[in-house]
C-alpha cells in the first residue's frame, strides 16, 4: 500500500472531527495528491462496514448507514430537540443563508433566547456573511457538523429540497411579498376557484353578518 495512502487513512481514522481537504494538505507530505488519494481511499472502503464520507469538502470515516440495526448497542440517548429548535433548524437549513428576522418571519413568532443558542451549541449552525442590506444583518448557515449529524454530503441532499424549490416555498421574503409576487399563485386556476369559493360561501355570510363585524370593529 502506498505510504501516502496509509498516512491519509491514519489521519482520517485518528481525527475526532471531519477534516477539510485543506487541513489534509497541511498534514500530508509535500506534493501528495490529496484529491486523488481521497478518491482511492473512498473506493477502497466502498461497501465496507466503515465508509469514507465527503461532507461538502470535509472528510471522515463513518459506519455504513445500513448497519444501524447491528450497531444499536452503541446508540446514545440524546435529548429530543424542541419543536421550536427543529423548526428553526430546518428553516436555516433550507433557506440558508437566512437572517434571524427572516426565520422569525417564516415561523411567525419571535425566536426565544435559547432556540438559536441550542443549535449553535450543538454545532449545527453558525453565522454566515452579513447581508448587504440596511443594517447589515447577520445571516445563519448550517455547518459541516450538521451534514455529519444527518449523514448528508451537502445541503443539496436535504430531503425534499427540489420539490420545495419547485413549489416556490423556499422564499425568504415576507409572505405578503412572496405570495403576491409569485405568478403561479395567481395564475393557478385551483387557487382562483378556492378564493371564489371563499367569497361565495353563503353560510359564512349568514353566520357573520358584515354589519355586525363592522360594528364590532
Amino acid at each position, binding site marked *: 500500500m502506498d505510504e501516502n495512502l496509509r498516512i491519509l487513512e491514519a*489521519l482520517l*481514522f*485518528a*481525527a*475526532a472531527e471531519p477534516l477539510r481537504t485543506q487541513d489534509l494538505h497541511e*498534514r500530508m507530505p509535500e506534493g501528495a495528491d490529496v484529491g486523488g488519494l481521497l478518491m482511492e481511499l473512498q473506493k477502497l472502503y466502498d461497501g465496507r462496514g466503515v465508509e469514507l464520507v465527503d461532507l461538502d469538502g470535509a472528510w*471522515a470515516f*463513518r*459506519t455504513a*448507514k445500513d448497519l*444501524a440495526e447491528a*450497531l444499536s448497542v*452503541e446508540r*446514545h440517548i*440524546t435529548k429530543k430537540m424542541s*419543536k*421550536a429548535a*427543529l*423548526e428553526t*433548524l*430546518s*428553516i436555516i437549513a433550507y433557506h440558508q443563508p437566512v437572517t434571524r428576522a427572516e426565520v422569525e418571519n*417564516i*415561523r*411567525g*413568532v419571535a425566536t426565544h433566547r435559547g432556540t438559536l443558542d441550542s443549535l449553535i451549541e450543538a454545532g449545527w449552525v453558525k453565522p454566515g456573511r452579513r447581508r448587504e442590506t440596511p443594517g447589515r444583518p447577520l445571516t445563519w448557515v448550517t455547518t459541516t457538523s450538521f451534514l*455529519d*449529524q*444527518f*449523514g448528508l454530503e451537502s445541503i443539496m441532499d*436535504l*430531503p*425534499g429540497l427540489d420539490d*420545495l424549490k419547485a*413549489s416556490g*416555498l423556499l422564499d425568504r421574503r*415576507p*409572505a*405578503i411579498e*412572496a*405570495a*403576491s409576487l*409569485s405568478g403561479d*399563485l*395567481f395564475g*393557478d386556476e*385551483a*387557487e382562483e376557484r*378556492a*378564493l371564489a369559493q*371563499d*367569497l361565495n*360561501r353563503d353560510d*359564512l*355570510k349568514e353566520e*357573520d353578518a358584515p354589519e*355586525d363585524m363592522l*360594528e*364590532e*370593529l
Partner: protein
Amino acid sequence: MSEQLAMSPDFEEDQPRAQEVHEADALLLDIDGYEGPISVLLELARNQKVDLRQISILELARQYLGFVERARTLNLNLAAEYLVMAAWLAYLKSRLLLPQEETGEEHTAEEVAEALQFQLRRLEAMQNAGEALMSLPQLGQEIFKRGMPEGLSVNTTIRYNVELYDLFKAYGDIKRRNEDQGYDLPEFQLMSAENAMSRMTRMLGQLPRKGMHTAWTTLESFIPEGIKSKLFGRSALASSLTAGLELAKQGKLEIKQDGLFRPVYLRAVSDLSDAEVAAQDG
C-alpha cells in the same frame, strides 16, 4: 378590540359547533406546545384536512375566532399575540366579505389572504422538512464515528523575529531613558497679549477717522501678515481679541459681532467731540 369582539352578544350567538369545541379544547389543552398564533392557525388548517392551497381563509378565520372565544369561555388567559391575531383576522374577514372598494390599503383583502395562506404553507413545509430531517439516519444513532479517536496533535514552535540590532536598541533605549531624567518643556512661539496690545494701539491711531468714530475694521486685519505657523496665527488672533476687549473696557474702542462665528469688528473711539472734529476738518 378583540376583547370587545369576544364579549359581544352578537358574537356569542355565533356558537361554534360541537365538533369544533372539541378541536379548540385539544388546542387549548396543549397551548404551550404551540409557538404562537401562526402555529395554532396551521394546526386548525391541518384539521380541515385539505391541501393548504385549497384552504378557506374565511373558514380558518372563523375557526380561529371560535378558538379564542372558547378560551374566554373557559377563563383561559391567552397571550396578547393570540388576541392581536384574532382582531386582525376579524378585520381580514370583514374585508373579504365586503364588496371591493377603494380602501386606500396597499394590498387587497385577497392578497392578504393569499399571503396568510402562503405563510401557512411555508411554515408547514418547514415543519415537514424538520420531520424529514429527523427521520434521516443520525450520527450517534444510526451512523457512528470512531469511538476512540487518537486525535491529531499540533506542535507549535515559535520563532522570534529579533536581531542583534533590536537587542542593542532596547538596551540603548533604557540607558537613554535613565539619562533623560526631567522634562524639557517644548518651546512655543506665540504672540503675547502685551505684543498684541501695543500692536493694536499703534494701528488704531493710523485708521482713517471721520466723525466721532473711525471705520469698523475686522479683527484679523490687526494680525501680522504672512504668518506661516498655524499655532502662531491662532495665538495672534486670541491675543488681539483679548487686547481689543481690554481697550474696549478702557473706552478706547468699540467691538461688535453680528452673530455667532461672524467676523468681529473693531473701531477706535475719538477723544474729540463731534464739534471738535468738525472744527478740525474745517
